[in-house]
């Protein structure tokens, strides 16, 4: 655990120095999941998967449109635009299906703090935010088997 945190810290420092934006997927500490495929992550944020395998409803925690994490979510992870994304989520509800539960918060710290109260929450946060007390207590999920500190991590 200590090694992971140290590596993470070094990565944060390196990323800041090099200007490379990196994003981590965080979930509630009680969530038993340890890793996700990129496709599974896209399905969650795209509103296709609305329930965790262990039961709770997926609650998407997102930042406001001008934030780096939201821009990364739209432009890189989902390859969509904010208006198209809104339309897709509205379509799901319009079809009569269970609507996507989405909460938009105005800072990484607020988002992480909010997640403590929602066991089914998942969020995409800047890796640098993991050093804050609010986000540091959340569980970082491996994406395609890799953590943000590891080579080949996809969310950069």
């Amino acid at each position, binding site marked *: 655990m200590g090694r992971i*945190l140290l590596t993470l810290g070094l990565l944060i420092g390196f990323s800041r120095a090099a200007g490379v934006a990196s994003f981590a997927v965080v979930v509630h500490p009680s969530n038993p999941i340890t890793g996700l495929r990129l496709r599974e992550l*896209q*399905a969650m944020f795209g509103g296709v998967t609305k329930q965790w395998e262990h039961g709770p409803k997926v609650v998407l925690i997102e930042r406001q449109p001008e934030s780096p994490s939201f821009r990364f979510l739209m432009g890189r992870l989902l390859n969509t635009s904010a208006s198209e994304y809104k339309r897709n989520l509205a*379509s799901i509800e319009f079809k*009569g299906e*269970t609507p996507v539960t989405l909460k938009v918060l105005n800072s990484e710290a607020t988002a992480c703090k909010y997640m403590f109260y929602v*066991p089914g929450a998942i969020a995409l946060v800047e890796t640098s935010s993991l*050093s804050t007390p609010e986000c*540091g207590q959340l569980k970082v999920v491996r994406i395609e088997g890799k953590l943000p500190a590891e080579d080949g991590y996809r969310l950069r």
Partner: protein
Amino acid sequence: MASFWAVPRPVVGQDRQDEIIQKLIARVEALEREVAALKQTAAAQSPAQPEPAPAQAVPKQETAVAVETPQPEPEPSEASRYTFHGYADAGFQRNEDGASDKKFVLGEIDLFATAQISPKLTALVEAVLETDNQTLVADVPVNVERLLLQYRDNDYFNLDIGSYRTAIGFYNTTLRASWLQTSLTRPMLFTFEDEGGFLPLHNVGLSANGIVPSGDLGLHYVVEVGSSRNYAQPGRTGLDWEQNAAVNVALYARPRAIPGLQIGSSSYHDKFSPEPGSMLNRSVWTAHAVYQAYRFEFLNEAVLARFREPGLGYGNVPGFYSQLGYRVGSNWTPYTRYDYVNVYGKGSVGEYAPQYVPWRTVFSGGLRYDLTEAVALKFELGRETDRFQLPWIRAALQLAFTF
């Protein structure tokens, strides 16, 4: 005033405050014990370090680990969850039906609301103010598109009771409001019944739907039993509910390996009465392949409708449409669509069918520009061919929005 402040506070409130204070005190004591225990542990593990280093690689992270993690609390109750969305549009049309001039038009106002009335029950209402069919200032037709009580127990079995849109193909279940649609117009195959459409797009009854355990194939089923509508057809003056059971079975797949892809088919059967006194057996088979992801929207649907009555002959209506759109940049989506339908048959039904479905082909092309997340501007040109008039080109501009 002084006497007011001198009045003792209600006893009930005081008891509640005392109880909260007692709980807080107990909580503080528990935290103090935990902190003491942690200090002892830290001291035992590293006796040579009198003070922790002030700045390490991830000091805050370690501090955070020492702080007690708040216990997960249950999610806020959604028992009273209520959502509302409105969709509307206004625009300008030129030569819409081949015989009309240019005009400004007000589109529909689609009001959509859901309310979760218990953990497993949801009410869904969709009412459309058809201002495009308005004839008098104080006479706006209101169409209750959907009114459903939805029972949601698990992913495998859900039951809807009420007025629903039939699961015939893809477009009918997914898209109605102009803002939700990429294109300015709907595919001609899915013209609404009250505008001359030949497909049964609305029924009243029961609809069961859910997931078929199929792994990565992502199979879903829909089984509907209800009564179909016949209205606004020649010889009719208004809505007429048919009491003949309409049955529809649909199956579609959303493979996990290809997000955005949906492939499916449906089989629908009912009794159909295009004019008073007649009763035809109507069957509708559909197949669709749709891809909506990564900037692409590629919609393909084929339909075969068959109307028959022993002694009166039959009429077959095969048709399809294909629509392709691609988002350029963040806001521009050019699109094109081709609609085709054919009508043939025998006997009096076969003779009548072409009058019921007069159009042959529509070739449309347009552009959608999302002005904001909630407002879209669309422009569309279309060339339509018909059995009873010369081909014509129409143009339309539309501002569609949601609120």
